């Protein structure tokens, strides 16, 4: 089956390209990156700030059950052109992954079809590969937390 989300990460390079075609009109796809409420829903994060405009900035946060922040990310918006293009930075706070530059290109494919191309540039090839491996680490941590929760209930 054809994969709807594709990643092109060439060996030894410090960037990667993510492409995805949506069964959505271009305007609705772009709206999901414009409306702070929807951004928060998609990212499953609390949006502390999200200024969808040139020279705007944003900050997200994820909290645990008790409301303590466990993850925070932020960035600045360099370009924000409706239904066309967004250029922004993205940084995970208190992590060694540095700042990444993200270029989003929005394309109309048909009345109800649109395409997003994300070009992500990292500070170095080594950092890119570390970020690529992150979901692995998260998966392991999540499994570990689940086990810990089960064990705690048994106590």
């Amino acid at each position: 089956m054809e994969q709807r989300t594709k990643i092109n990460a060439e060996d030894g390079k410090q960037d990667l390209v993510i492409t995805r075609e949506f069964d959505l009109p271009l305007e609705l796809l772009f709206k999901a990156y414009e409306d702070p409420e929807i951004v928060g829903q998609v990212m499953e994060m609390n949006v502390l700030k999200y200024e969808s405009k040139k020279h705007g900035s944003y900050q997200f946060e994820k909290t645990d059950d008790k409301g303590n922040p466990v993850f925070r990310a932020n960035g600045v918006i360099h370009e924000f052109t409706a239904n066309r293009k967004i250029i922004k930075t993205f940084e995970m706070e208190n992590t060694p992954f540095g700042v990444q530059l993200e270029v989003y290109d929005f394309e109309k494919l048909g009345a109800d079809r649109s395409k997003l191309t994300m070009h992500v540039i990292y500070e170095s090839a080594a950092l890119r590969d570390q970020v690529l491996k992150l979901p692995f680490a998260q998966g392991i941590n999540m499994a570990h937390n689940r086990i810990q929760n089960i064990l705690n209930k048994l106590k």
Partner: protein
Amino acid sequence: MNLRRDVFQAIADPTRRAILLLVATQAMTAGAIASNFDTARPTVSKHLQILTECELLGQTQTGREIHYHINAKKMKEVADFIEPFRKMWDDRFNKLEAIMKNYKPKK
């Protein structure tokens, strides 16, 4: 850390990728592999050594000859490396699509 043993370092080299393609269909001796390249024989040997060290290639001895063959298990590991990252984005985009399909503009 020995970088040579890093699988991703190993496949970053175009000659080494060509060697992997070459032996993907059949096991070959170092000489047979080298005859496909213009590079000097010792250079090819070095590439074979690196590929063997990081377990992308395996060796089988038949009499006096050593044949190199591809290690399918290790190759799969490399191919799967990006999959959790791709899956994470795929899930996020699926969610975005689902949310926007139900989107009602606020008047």
